[in-house]
């Protein structure tokens, strides 16, 4: 039904996941991880699971990003590997 829309979101999701994995700057990785979470929430909303998408958007794109940023400020910003 909405398969074109889902395909576009899925491509964005994969791109965000790969960028978050490859990034050396952990702050950028956190931001891309938020983008990933938001894309996952959009996929859930398109598929009709609005509650799951809502939770994913609030927790994944909001709270988790903030907690990761705090953890980065407490430790190091650059990845060593």
């Amino acid at each position, binding site marked *: 039904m909405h398969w074109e829309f889902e395909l576009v979101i899925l491509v964005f999701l994969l791109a965000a996941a790969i960028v978050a994995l490859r990034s050396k700057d952990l702050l950028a990785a956190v931001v891309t991880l938020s983008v990933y979470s938001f894309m996952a929430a959009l996929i859930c909303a398109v598929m009709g699971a609005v509650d799951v998408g809502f*939770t994913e958007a609030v927790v994944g794109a909001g709270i988790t990003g*903030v*907690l990761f940023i*705090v953890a980065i400020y*407490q430790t190091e910003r650059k990845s060593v590997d």
Partner: protein
Amino acid sequence: MERGREGIDPMRGYYDDRIVALSSRLVVPFIQLFALYVVFHGHYSPGGGFQGGAMLAASFLLIRLSVGSDGAQLQFRKGWGTPGSSIGTLIYLVTGLSTLLLGGYFLDYSQLPLGMGESETRSMGILIVEIGVAVAVACTLTAIYDDLVGEEGRRGSPHDA
């Protein structure tokens, strides 16, 4: 470690960036209003206690991120987090146990003494439980942030009581 202007740690200290502070102060009341809408309108639309509570926590964390932990004490004090989460969980538990004591099953809301029909009483019970979940989630997530950032932010606070 990343430091802000003049050596102040941006996570803890009170540092003024007026654009960030003003815009987040402008946005936060609307986030909180929408969070309350999500909690109380969960009977009729997507949403509920967990989502609304997480949104409320997001509004607290936005103020904490933008003006620093010291300025955010005016909105939500550090000491409130852990007691608040206990209170939220207790609301849920007491609701369940009171129905048990009033002669029903555990968490059987139709036994609550609210003076309404059975299904309406169940609806109100769901609302009470959702409020408990929202309070618990909002306070817990804020408390986790405060514990991560640490205690030093209290020094030189504008609201040092």
